[in-house]
């Protein structure tokens, strides 16, 4: 068998090979480029914070923080203009509140069914279908709320005396929109409960109802709470459903049959036109945006805490 060519010559490893130096430079350059690309995500956050903060501060220097909090109405275009954020927060929480009240039982029920009752085969095709709901653009939900839920369900079928634009329709549809979020995360948490716990209870003669409600659900509680809080966070930031179906009227009341405006909807409605940069009206977009950002930040932080808690317990 012939000796390999070159193996005798290949004695000293390239101790001072020039090729090595230029290659090292090339590798370092690549590393810096990759880091620069990654930095874009950081710049995005910084950009959001800077844009919101700088204009909000300017807004407060014009309008005043006190006015922002205590003015009775949100009426930037009236004479005299009022800038009380309370009406928008009221609308946001009313719509979110009703939506959550509906989404929690529906979402948890779906999660319990998927995790405790459904066969693995059923779970395999039901879960993707739920994921489809997540992928539906919110404008489709908005259209559905305005053209079907309000006239057909509420007015005709249920006979509720709602206005064309009302918070109730928006809330109902929003509940369906956040249901998959709640269901999916809760189901994850429930599936993570060790089978041993269930078997222990079944072994004592417990029924599925009892095991689901008294064993699995409490064990998965952190995950369920995380799911609900995430659902709230999504609902708070949701724009289109409200914009289309709930009307664009700031409202201090609690009657969902009336039109309401949320923070997100206000931002969209105002930002649609061409408002001169630097005007007070322009700044209201940012002040409202800052409020919305802070709200979702708080809820997201709470949710992450609970997610970490439930992951910790079983991993």
């Amino acid at each position, binding site marked *: 068998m012939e000796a390999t060519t070159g193996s005798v010559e290949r004695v000293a490893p390239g101790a001072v090979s020039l090729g090595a130096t230029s290659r090292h430079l090339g*590798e370092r350059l690549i*590393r810096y480029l*990759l*880091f620069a*690309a*990654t930095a*874009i*995500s950081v710049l*995005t*956050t910084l*950009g*959001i914070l800077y*844009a919101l903060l700088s*204009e909000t501060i300017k807004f407060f220097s014009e309008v005043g923080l006190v006015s922002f909090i205590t003015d009775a109405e949100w009426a930037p275009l009236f004479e005299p203009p009022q800038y009380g954020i309370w009406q928008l927060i009221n609308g946001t929480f009313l719509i979110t509140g009703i939506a959550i009240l509906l989404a929690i*039982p*529906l979402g948890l*029920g*779906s999660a319990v*069914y998927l995790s405790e*009752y459904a066969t693995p085969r059923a779970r395999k095709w*039901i879960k993707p*279908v739920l994921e489809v*709901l997540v*992928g*539906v*653009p*919110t*404008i*489709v939900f*908005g*259209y*559905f709320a*305005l*053209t*079907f839920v309000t006239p057909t369900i509420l007015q005709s079928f249920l006979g509720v005396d709602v206005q064309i634009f009302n918070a109730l329709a928006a809330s109902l549809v929003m509940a*369906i929109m956040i249901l998959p979020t709640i269901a999916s995360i809760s189901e994850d948490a429930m599936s993570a409960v060790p089978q041993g716990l269930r078997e222990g209870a079944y072994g*004592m003669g417990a*029924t*599925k*109802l009892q*095991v*689901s409600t*008294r064993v699995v659900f*409490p064990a998965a509680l952190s995950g369920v709470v995380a799911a609900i809080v995430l659902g709230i966070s999504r609902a*708070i*930031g949701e*724009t*289109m459903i409200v914009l289309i179906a709930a009307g664009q009227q700031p409202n201090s009341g609690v009657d969902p049959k009336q039109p309401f405006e949320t923070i*997100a909807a206000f*931002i*969209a409605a105002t*930002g*649609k*036109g061409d408002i001169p*940069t630097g005007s007070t009206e322009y700044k209201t*977009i940012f002040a409202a945006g800052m409020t*919305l950002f802070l709200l*979702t930040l708080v809820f*997201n932080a709470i949710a*992450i805490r609970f997610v970490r808690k439930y992951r910790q317990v079983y991993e």
Partner: protein
Amino acid sequence: MSAGPNLPTASDAANASLSEGPRKERLKDGAFRIAMLSCLGIALITLITLVVQDAVKGVGSINLDFFTNYASSFPENAGIRAALLGTIWLMGVCALFIIPVGVASAIYLEEYADGDRWYNRFIEVNIQNLAAVPSIIYGILGLAFLVRGPLELGRTVLAGGLTLALLVLPVVIIAGREAIRAVPPSIREGSMALGATKWQTLWKQVLPAAIPGIATGVILALSRAIGETAPLILVGAPIFIAFDPTGLNSSFTVLPLQAFNWISQPQSEFKDLAAAAILVLLGLLLIMNAVAIWLRNRYQQRW
């Protein structure tokens, strides 16, 4: 954990027959099962109703003219031509941005970043936070920095595409990281042992193996971007666009924006047009998801 379940006692068990539990328990159990199933059922039925209702209302307006006409004050003459082209343009700009930036970020975070350094952990947390920020906030970002502000691009295709790109970038990064992570270390070792550099290993072995996962992530991101309305309300065109977008500097509208404009009109004919636009949008989404699923099934590497 809670206190133990309210269980039948031993004497109950002795008295009851083995084949049938107490009737009340069985009824309760059955009712519970039906209740849970109904929750799921409501969700599924609503989804079906959603699509069917839109299809019913919108399908009547769909004909060839619908695709070739521009928006118009006369419903009979209105079409989605500008919106459809605008959607395609924006998806193009978005993809051109998120693919290199997203993949590069994923490579950096998976292969180069030292997980113990504070700034790398900060970047990871940051990306997860960005994924949870409401989309309208991205609209504000776009308005402040892209449309106006330092870049002053105006309400153009470029501004719209970049706004969407920033919105969905986290999706690509997260999917890309998973795809890269899934490539086993043994492949990297085999390559390095032959005398390949880190980058050669990445570019010629790891990345090619991760492409199906990355492609799926990109399609997922674009699926999200294609339906986004709220941020584009702040960054996109005023109501009437009656021309084809010609470049990055053009004003634009997209399908969901056009639908929103039509919904906002009082006449019911426009609302039906909106339904039709939404139907086209859903159709596009269906195609994109089908491609993603096909990609995943065909090219998925079982390690």
